[in-house]
């Protein structure tokens, strides 16, 4: 598998969260497809030059969320089940939450935030229909 992940260890966002999010995103975008094998913990740790325990934690959490299936001796694979689809929706949800939290923290009212959201939706979804 080519390197499709980039993590920034110098960020204040925990590395395991960065990598979990990126793997979910890759599945959402179809860069990783159901049934595809993920690199081993060791291979991915060396590829990214990050700690193997951090990668192992990512795989454990993805396994727990039903995004990947790990079988001892065979490796980890992108799950074909509905949980994988639901988990990738998490990526969009948390981005959305972040945006709303930011709007609220800037002091926008509920109405103003709603208005802004509707305008943004109109803009991006109309672009798609043109």
């Amino acid at each position: 598998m080519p390197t499709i992940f980039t993590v920034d260890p110098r960020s204040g966002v925990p590395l395991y969260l960065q990598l979990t999010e990126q793997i979910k995103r890759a599945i959402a975008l179809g860069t990783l497809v159901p049934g595809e094998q993920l690199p081993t913990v060791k291979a991915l740790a060396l590829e990214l030059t990050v700690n193997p325990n951090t990668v192992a934690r990512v795989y454990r959490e993805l396994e727990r969320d039903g995004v990947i299936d790990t079988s001892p001796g065979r490796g980890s694979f992108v799950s074909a089940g509905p949980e994988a689809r639901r988990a990738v929706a998490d990526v969009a949800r948390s981005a959305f939450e972040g945006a709303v939290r930011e709007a609220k923290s800037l002091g926008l009212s509920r109405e103003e935030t709603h208005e802004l959201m509707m305008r943004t939706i109109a803009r991006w979804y109309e672009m798609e229909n043109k």
Partner: protein
Amino acid sequence: MTAPLIALNGLTKRYGSFTAVDGVTFDVPEGSICGLLGPNGAGKTTTFKCMLGFVKPSAGTIAIAGAPVTPATFESLAYVPERASLYDNLTIADHLALYRRSYKHFDAARADELLALFSLEAKQKARHLSKGMRTAAALVLAFSMRPRVLILDEPSSGLDPIHQRHVLDLMIEAAANGAAVLFSSHQVGQVERAADSVAIMKRGKLIVSSVIDDLKSGEKIIEAVFAGPVPDLGDLARDPRILRTEQTGSLLRVVTRDENDAIAQRIFTLHPKSIRTIDLNLEEIFMNAVSGDQQ
């Protein structure tokens, strides 16, 4: 559960009235890399010397793979001091030959690969090596032993950025194969990248010992701006989940230790105009830890 490969318990070293290492307790389990950080004179090197039996602790215990350190421990333990100790009149090849005779897991093929990795010539005599090359040669020797425990004091001092990255890769590979690695560094970024846990020392005491990602999850700055002056925080000011608060006019900055979401919610009830949570990287967390008044 098997015993952690490295276990320090209440390690203390006094020189007269000066306490160089003061009750230090932490573990490094199999497959783990721990970065040891601290200002100069914090006691990092003394801790290493105690662990290796070069210095007798005043109190506390050290266990390597569950047992006290004996000469047999060094069969599977590699130590690279900050100033690499090599025999000046011997070549790198001579050193490798010595190691091959001394260590039963010594991997000669691996040594050749590592020499090439660090661009070292086996026929060079140690006394002709630059500081960085000496460090590299000592690392080649250490990693070729295939040790289960690695103790590295500033392992990248004098190395160029590419060779520094190789050192991190070697530590990661060793950990992935089950070794326990403890290394000190002044470069917080290296610890942040390669280590899963961090130990921070200050004036002989261990002031932080944690999984790095857990530290980053917990320690944040919550910044709130109010319409007028910052209101009275009430009992929030004494919340144990808060490390520190700073107030200037209408601006409140709270450094959290844990549960920053819950604290942000509490601050929200004081009706700030705006509030945001700022992530802190390990360097900022380190600076908070060593510059704070708290011991």
